[in-house]
């Protein structure tokens, strides 16, 4: 564990310094870090360290799940090492993509960070606008978190999330259990991370008690939030039937949907007029477009085993269908049944490719 003292209370700048150091050390060729760009914070791939100006990994916003970006950067073979600053749900999605051979981490240094949740992009941008983009939204948010203030605008997926501490990262930035005004802590999460910290001349010190307590406290808080949300009953089928416009945005932003071309862009959804009519005749009416439920069920069957419940599908839905909540529940149930947890470990075999004689006993009986 390396403790970096805050000199002026600007932790963004401290983290920025860390990445500058990383780039300067020539351990990595480039870093993928969230930076402020006209009112929003988005991932940027930075090669020159003077361009690390507006790093803000703590801004409570997640425009895309960066596992998709890492996938783009790493699937084709490449010797150049890069570092990527990722939130826990992004790392977990990345773990799944690695198992699905859609990303590689051989030459990737994963820098993880504790996540206190995020606003939707539109909420974040409008709050930022209200404060003239002065960075106070992030600071207020973190201050609020520190004093246990409830922030109701946080996305449902984040409120349901119980994976807010980064696992499977090479280097982890610890925020919980710290006085963010005084210092932040950087720890090595792997041998590679240890080596990098050593090379940067940063010392590794043991985990603190305060952090453990803080993590437990945060878990409690989320559990309560989750229970609250689960009280609201949603008839998912009805919501889809009435609200879905088949824009398939959910598919486009999902980090797990990795097909080059979706099956729904193939012959499976092409029918003759007579076919539509015959269906309509059978029931008297046919909801159009007709394959919305088929689309959602197909997508579920494809992604539930690897879904990390990052909620990007819900964020992308123009009609605010509570997809994140649904996927959170279903993926938890499915993964529990298969004794699998998406994003937990690179070594855990994907349920579809592993065969165990004793699996699915719940279904058999």
């Amino acid at each position, binding site marked *: 564990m390396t403790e970096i003292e805050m000199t002026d209370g600007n932790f963004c700048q401290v983290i920025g310094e860390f990445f500058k150091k990383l780039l300067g050390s020539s351990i990595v060729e480039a870093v993928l870090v969230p930076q402020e760009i006209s009112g929003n914070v988005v991932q940027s791939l930075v090669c020159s360290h003077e361009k690390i100006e507006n790093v803000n990994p703590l801004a409570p916003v997640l425009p895309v799940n960066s596992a998709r970006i890492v996938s783009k950067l790493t*699937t084709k073979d490449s010797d150049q090492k890069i570092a990527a600053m990722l939130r826990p749900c992004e790392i977990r999605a990345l773990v799944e993509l690695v198992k*699905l*051979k*859609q990303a590689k981490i051989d030459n990737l240094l994963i820098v993880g960070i504790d996540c206190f949740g995020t606003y939707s992009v539109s909420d974040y941008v409008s709050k930022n606008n209200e404060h003239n983009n002065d960075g106070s939204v992030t600071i207020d948010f973190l201050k609020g978190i520190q004093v246990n203030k409830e922030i109701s605008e946080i996305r449902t997926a984040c409120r349901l999330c119980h994976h807010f501490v980064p696992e499977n990262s090479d280097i982890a930035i610890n925020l919980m259990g710290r006085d963010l005004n005084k210092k932040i802590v950087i720890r090595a999460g792997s041998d590679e991370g240890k080596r990098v910290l050593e090379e940067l001349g940063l010392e590794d010190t043991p985990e603190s008690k305060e952090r453990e307590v803080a993590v437990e406290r945060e878990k409690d808080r989320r559990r309560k939030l989750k229970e609250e949300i689960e009280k609201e009953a949603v008839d998912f089928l009805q919501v889809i039937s009435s609200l879905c416009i088949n824009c398939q945005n959910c598919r486009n932003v999902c980090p797990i949907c*990795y*097909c*080059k*071309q*979706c*099956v729904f862009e*193939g*012959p*499976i959804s092409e*029918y*003759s007029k007579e*076919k539509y009519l015959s269906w309509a005749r059978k029931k008297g009416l046919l909801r159009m477009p007709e394959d919305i439920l088929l689309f959602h069920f197909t997508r579920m069957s*494809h992604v539930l085993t690897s879904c990390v419940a990052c909620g990007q599908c819900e964020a992308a839905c123009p009609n605010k269908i509570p997809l994140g909540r649904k996927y959170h529940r279903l993926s938890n149930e499915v993964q529990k049944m298969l004794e699998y947890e998406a994003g937990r470990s690179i070594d855990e075999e*994907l349920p*579809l*490719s*592993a065969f165990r004689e004793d699996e699915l006993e719940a279904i058999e009986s």
Partner: protein
Amino acid sequence: MHKRVLVVGGGIAGIQASLDLAEMGVEVFLLEKGPSIGGRMAQLDKTFPTNDCAMCILSPKLVEAAAHPNIKIIANAELKSLDGEIPNFRAKILKKPRYIDEEKCTGCAICMSKCPVKIPDEYNKGLSKTKCMRIPFPQAVPALPIMDRESCIYHQRGKCRICEKFCEADAIDFDQKEESIDVEVGSVIFASGSEEFDAAIKDEYGYKTFPNVLTSIEFERILSASGPTEGHITRPSDGKEPRRIAFIQCVGSRDMQMGNEYCSSVCCMQAVKDSVIVKEHLPGVEATIFFMDIRAFGKDFDKFVNRAKDDYHTRFIRARISAVEIDPATENLIIQYNSEAGSLIEENFDLVVLSVGLLSTAGIRKMAARFDIEINACGFARTSSFTPMTASRPGIFIAGTFSGPKDIPETVMQASGAASAAASLLTELPIRELREELPQEFDLRGEQIRTGVFVCRCGINIAATVDVPGVVEYASALQGVVHSQEFIFACAQDSQKLIGEKIKELKLNRVIVSACTPRTHELLFQKTLSSSGLNPYLFEFVNIREQCSWVHQKEQEKATEKAKDLVRMAATKAGLLEPLSRMSLKVNKGALIIGGGVAGMVASLELSTQGYEVFLVEKESELGGNLRHVHYTLEGEKTDRFLKSLIAKVKKDDNIQLYIDSEIREIMGYVGNFHTKIGNGKQTTNNKPRELEHGVVIVATGGEEYQPSEYLYGRDERIITQRELEERLTKQQSAIDKLGSIVMIQCVGSRNGQYPYCSRVCCSQAIKNALKLKEINPEVNVYMLYRDIRTYGLKELYYKKAREKGVIFIRYEEGEEPQIEAQNSKSEQQASNGEVLVKAYDPILQRNLVINADLVVLSSAIRARKENKILSQMLKVPLNADGFFLEAHVKLRPVDFATDGIFVCGLAHYPKDVSETICQAKAASARAVTILRKDEIEAEGRVSQIRKERCSGCGLCIEICPYTAIELEEGERVAIVNEALCKGCGACAASCRSAAIDLKGFKDEQILAALSVV
């Protein structure tokens, strides 16, 4: 002269031997005394323990034998004489007249329909009538009629000739004479079978006197859909459905009065199977089996018996029935029996089935004598445990029940083994090279779709439920269909011929058959397409038997409607079918044999003799496996000498590369092209290559003795296993001399909840050792505590001998296992002076017994090796629930795996004795040679195909493929299919999220097109 073998007898034994030889490049003359090949199996309804329909699995073999260019079937013929010796036998065959010109006859059977004379139908055991001019049964091969001269009006009275009038082929020949055929062959296999016991001899059972007493074979015919009652179970006296059926076991078997002391091996399972089938036909029926011991000694047999008991409520009553009486008023049958407790019970049955044994007759004995084949005391061909298919006369081999009663898989194994043995004699002779000349395929480019639809009635199997003419008419109006018609049996040879003719005549370019299942019959029709110039993949199979007539038996209209829907879907899909080609692949001529026990060594020598290189891998430091612990057989043969000479032969064989102290690390590749890595052994074999290339794999990894945890084993030195007893009997007889009382406990670790299987050999082994004990010291008391004595076949003679020698047999029930108390623990000084008390409940005496034993011998189970799991994963072949390797088909493919090029033999497959192990090892070699002798083999045509543009290279298909046929192409990051390995199972296509995998013949657009019309 090239390799030639005569096979005498066209039952399943003769057919299997012929097919194996033919595939080994040997020309075969298959001689059958009846008018059709098929034997007794053709008369069975279902087969145990899987309840597969006997005819459904046999019929493709009949057709294959008929179609094989290396096999010449000579039916309705007899072997008259056999002179000469290896490899120059001269056989004189007498072919009896059919009164049909076989060249001209089309098998249309019009003669049969017009013949005015009805005679009892032999195929149905006389329970129904057929014509004097008849085709013996619908699937008969050759599919030709035969005339019964004795009943023919013209032959007897000089008038009639109606058949001749109607025969358009001008094929009737009333003056046909016997024909003598001389053939020269290198070797002969006798698969001439056995006869059923004539139940009328045991008149106390009332067979032929009381109408409702049937034999088991007659009952098979009654159960069969093609039988006299068309599968309706009725009793002969009044045609009513029986409600209570009794099966009486051991009729003519285990019967000293009749002089048939042996056990017929198959009747127990046959009766259990029939009790299950009858219950499926008539849910209210109650089936009762009267038996002495239930001999469910085969693979998964006990599980089947348990199912009959638990799920079908078959009653099992242990009683020898002395007589069957009749109630004249109802023609019901009265059976009196003694319960085990001793009380006399009388029960009333509607139908009694006599489980008749298999036996050798005077005729069989005479025939054997004529050809210098020695027979044993029971009248069966004499063989030894070490050469179980070799007859006394050199160059002659035995297969099937001619050498003793056995079930179908045992018969098939012996037949394949005999084929291997016969081929091994003829290694000097060249093979008969035959290339099946297929006509040039039609060029379909620019052709309109012209579909032919053929709908099968399957006798009544389909036609009784589905309106077949209605389906034919409906099909004729479908788009692209230019011809539609029905067949009584689409699989019959004449139907195949007709489909071929229609293809040519009407220029059909798509063929649809609506019949049973593609699983058994698709290949047959595809061959017909190929030989008619049509690509075999322009074919659609519609299963209207299982999917219509069977599942909708009670809703005939719906069944017909569904059949029409399915035909419409097929016709729509057929229009999108494309011609597919099959890849051919080279075959490496080496064989990997895993396991250096008897099975592995016998297989190695067999393959080496036939000229193939063998890599024999043994994990231990010496060869011999489990046989090292067996010193003599039940029949008294010395195994030590046999094993020693076997090891010596293997060691000095130049074709056999021996790897001892070695294990398999990795097996990659596929049939014809395996690559194997052998793990480091000791220095002795270090100079040999560790990476091997070979074409086939034989798994002969054996089994192991169960180390009992029960009965104080391991805690008291007076409790030992049979294997330990056998060691002592051979090596320390003096210690045995002093013993006064020995108790043997059977089924230790077998037939229990966790391990429900029977270890098969322990009863014989116990009796063998009991007899040895009595031989050493006739005064010794030997008690055997057993559940059922399973000395099947001729082993029964030794059970009788043991009883005669005074071995005392006491039965115990499951759940009432004997209890053991050791008075002195072994830690005390004079342990052997103390007593071991064995307590058991005797169900006949109805009381507890206490036996003072000096020694307790446990007949401990044979277990599958734990390592089987690793090897099965490497080879990607399955294990059964008990951990033994699971063959491709328990009846007809007992040494094959579903994966080509991999075979199994010995204890790795299931517990068996040395003779059965040798049989199976030779069978595995025969099957291996059918691959090794070819330079190239053809792969499947319906294989997976990757649409690269859609493939994301996620690799799920690679993990899912059961045949390791898919790899990831690293550069492009897409999956690629090895067509040689792909079996077209479609698992990859179904699992691909991106719809990037098409299974040729089942492409998305083809399936969606079929779906779009329903």
